[in-house]
């Protein structure tokens, strides 16, 4: 290896992305568990812990800027850094969406949900599975896997449409449901957006590996 220090920095940057995606995934899981359990304390923790996500994300951005300025990366290294810059933004936004869910949990407090939460946790499970897969595709530079993972966004979208239809029906049936219903719709919408962000991450991974710019959602 000719540029050991530089290449070690690239590896560290990849590791930071892995840590970031772990944190984001936990934030999603906990935001949904706190929603299900009406656990305001846990929801507040999710909101507070977002600062850790923001810190790592900012650090990744600084590291990328520094590598671009000092090392003038080219070819696969350039594609890696460009992908990291984009994935970093998508992960940070996904973290913010988990915070938005936690805020709704705080607002709902002990109010009973108008329906049992089935599809919303299922959406969260699919999104977390997508983040896991995207992380693996990123670490292993596996563009085929990135394509496969992006397809799961269809499942998230289908679940969102299902939740939306169901909630609309409940609202029409009884206007007293509207308050809780609109909050649940907001949550489902946030999860749907998360799926889009992970699809974007998959696009960045395909670019990183193949140099091709693709649209996967």
């Amino acid at each position: 290896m000719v540029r050991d220090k530089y290449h070690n920095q690239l590896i560290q940057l990849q590791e930071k992305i892995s840590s970031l995606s772990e944190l984001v995934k936990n934030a999603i899981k906990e935001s949904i568990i706190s929603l299900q359990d009406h656990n305001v304390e846990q929801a507040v923790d999710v909101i507070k812990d977002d600062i850790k996500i923001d810190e790592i994300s900012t650090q990744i951005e600084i590291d990328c800027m520094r590598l671009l300025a000092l090392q003038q990366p080219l070819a696969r290294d350039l594609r890696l850094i460009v992908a990291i810059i984009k994935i970093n933004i998508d992960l940070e936004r996904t973290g913010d969406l988990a915070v938005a869910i936690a805020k709704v949990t705080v607002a709902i407090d002990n109010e009973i949900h108008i329906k049992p939460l089935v599809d919303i946790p299922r959406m969260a499970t699919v999104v977390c599975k997508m983040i896991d897969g995207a992380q693996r595709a990123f670490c292993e530079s596996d563009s085929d896997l990135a394509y496969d993972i992006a397809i799961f966004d269809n499942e998230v979208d289908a679940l969102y449409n299902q939740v939306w239809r169901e909630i609309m029906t409940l609202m029409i049936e009884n206007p007293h449901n509207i308050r809780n219903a609109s909050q649940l719709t907001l949550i489902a919408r946030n999860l749907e957006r998360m799926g889009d962000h992970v699809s974007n991450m998959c696009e960045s991974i395909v670019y990183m590996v193949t140099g091709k710019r693709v649209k996967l959602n």
Partner: protein
Amino acid sequence: MIKLLENETIEIESIDINLWYDDVQALKDISIKLPKNKVTAIIGPSGCGKSTFLRCINRMNDLIKTCRVTGELLCGSTDIYGKDIDVITLRKKIGMVFQKPNPFPMSIYDNIAYGPRIHNNLNKNKLNDLVEESLRSAALWDEVKDKLNKSALSLSGGQQQRLCIARTLAVKPEVILFDEPCSALDPISTTRIEDLIGKLKKDYTIIIVTHNMQQAARASDYTAFFLLGEMIEFGKTKIIFEKPKQKSTEDYITGRFG
């Protein structure tokens, strides 16, 4: 390569060029087409044959006794290694700028006028015009117009290099070969030369050998990657530097060897 260059006019074409220094083979079956009015960069680690190939194009290698070349090298329809070729005329048509600025130990004016005085019989006024035009094209005129009779050696390194470019332009070449033209220059002079190369390609075909990858990426339209005497990859610069096809090209430009 046919599709890659389908919208280009080919200025230089090399067909299976092999070159030996004694019994050491420095170039192996180099076949490449270099487009007219474009900048082509040749990159590769030390000893890969890039400068050797560049020197083939205006037969500078003739000066090395042990050097032997086979294959065909065409400039337009002219066979560069043809029997009837006058090497002096060839080098007028295919000019060269070297790594270190090498002005003649004479005045700025005489440096530029040297070539035209040999090749053409110009009257004083025409010669003055040509000197000015060459210096302007090399983006040096404004800096030296009041001291044309001063020694060229009094100029800074970057100015000397632009003087050498002006000197090359004065004999009206068609092709200009740059052999690491900025490696002895500071960053500002380097930027000036790169800007100049960008402007010159309108009128000339430019081939540049450089160790500076970013320079190749910035200044050229096409890039050829050489390794151990072979041409590994040739393509549009933006593709070579973003997603090269060959692994060894990628390894070299990302600093994994070389």
